[in-house]
């Protein structure tokens, strides 16, 4: 599913359908998902290839934010000076890319799920985030990769107190998605620095061997050995 395909290309399941076909001197792209139809013409000198790839889940229905927030179904309390690994789910968005010669170009983004947004922080200086809710799992749960992916989150409590956490906020810049046909995943850490202060960051590593790296829409602006972090302040 998530690989480079030659045109004509057709993919169909009960969630969505994609058709890329040659019509006269151009290429036609048609996508249907949740009764929403997207049709585009691709005007290209050479015959491009098409790729479907998971992308950062912060694009729909429009680019409001690069942050997303996962609220835990139940509030958790973590022991002082402890590192705990949990698994949580995140919503899926898919990007359709065309490849002509060397470059990839995004032509469509869609998702079978309806997006929702929330405010993290203050009304003035807070952050609008893409919202999602998830149970906390101790082991890798089963998911339908067309709806949800899995995040392995390492929570590290650097403080000397028990800390209550109910959510985690991430910056899509620096997000590293990995996929197989059955699983889309990412890894991240949440470092609790103080009772009301934490930092989240992505880890560039797949959850399982053999996973391929997904296309990235959001990359850090500057060349840096450090991945962008999100600082959660005031509300954990």
């Amino acid at each position: 599913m998530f690989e480079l395909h030659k045109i004509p290309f057709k993919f169909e399941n009960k969630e969505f359908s994609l058709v890329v076909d040659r019509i006269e001197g151009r290429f036609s792209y048609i996508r249907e998902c949740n009764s929403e139809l997207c049709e585009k013409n691709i005007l290209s000198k050479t015959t491009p290839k098409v790729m479907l790839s998971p992308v950062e889940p912060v694009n729909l229905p429009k680019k409001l934010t690069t942050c997303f927030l996962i609220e835990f179904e139940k509030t958790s309390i973590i022991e002082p000076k402890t590192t705990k690994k949990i698994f949580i789910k995140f919503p899926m968005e898919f990007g359709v890319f065309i490849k002509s010669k060397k470059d990839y170009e995004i032509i469509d983004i869609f998702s079978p799920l309806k997006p929702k947004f929330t405010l993290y922080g203050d009304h003035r200086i807070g952050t609008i985030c893409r919202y999602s809710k998830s149970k906390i799992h101790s082991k890798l749960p089963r998911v339908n990769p067309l709806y949800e992916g899995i995040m392995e989150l390492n929570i590290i409590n650097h403080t000397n107190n028990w800390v209550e956490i109910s959510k985690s906020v991430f910056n899509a810049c620096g997000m590293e998605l990995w996929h197989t046909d059955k699983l889309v995943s990412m890894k991240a850490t949440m470092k609790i620095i103080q009772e009301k202060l934490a930092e989240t960051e992505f880890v560039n590593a797949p959850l399982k061997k053999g996973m391929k790296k997904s296309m990235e829409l959001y990359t850090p602006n500057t060349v840096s050995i450090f991945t962008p972090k999100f600082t959660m302040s005031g509300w954990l």
Partner: protein
Amino acid sequence: MVIILDKIVYGNVSIFNLLLALIVVIIVALIAKGISINLRRALKGKISKNHLRNMVRLVNFIGIIFALIIILPIIGVNPTGLIVAGGIVAIVIGLATQNVISNLVAGLFLMIERPIKIGDSVNIDGTSGVVEDVKIISTTIRTFDGLYVRIPNEHVFNTKITNYNINIVRRFEYTIRIRYRDDAEKTIEIIKNLIDDHSFTLKNPAPEIFVENLGDSSVNINVKIWTPTSENWNVKTELLWKIKKVLEAEGIQIPFPQREVWFKNKPKTT
């Protein structure tokens, strides 16, 4: 070396004096350059490029004046006469341009305080519109029906400013009226589901839906919804009619104004 520096060039001015004057000019030029760079960084995007360029020129001009004031005595020019003449000119100009200067000062304070910036939707003393330009002396607004309004900065600075864009989230509210015989709890549930289904109504702060009051002709339900500021208008204009249609589909109606009439004497019926 000292002998060369002490060599008189003209009047009482030695080579040392000239070198000192040159050093002063270089230092003042570097300071002016530093101020210009920081000014550009601080105001980029907040005012137009033309005005930013003019401000930078003003800073450089002030730097030149400052340098001249310092080096004139060093190079043997007595500035006393110039200062007296300059003082008189300054008084005359000051009196003639009081309003302009107060607008200019207000403009500088507005740039420091930044209650508004280009592109913001604002209401300044009853004039609503989009800020097109924040100049040094005046602020230009394009009203929502396309009119050009120029407001002197002194007025902008001293009046109440409402900025609709400055916060990242905004709230709007509706009052939904239903008949007394309709189920208010069911109505609230329907409205809540409709709001939850919309992508741009925020999860937090959560929407509030409650029976606000029992009116003369209807039960009045208040609906308060938070959205990202950029989507506030679109959601507000879209959602009300959807609520009406969904309620009607569920048999819940918006009542017309009603009165109960009691007759003092029961009418005879045949």
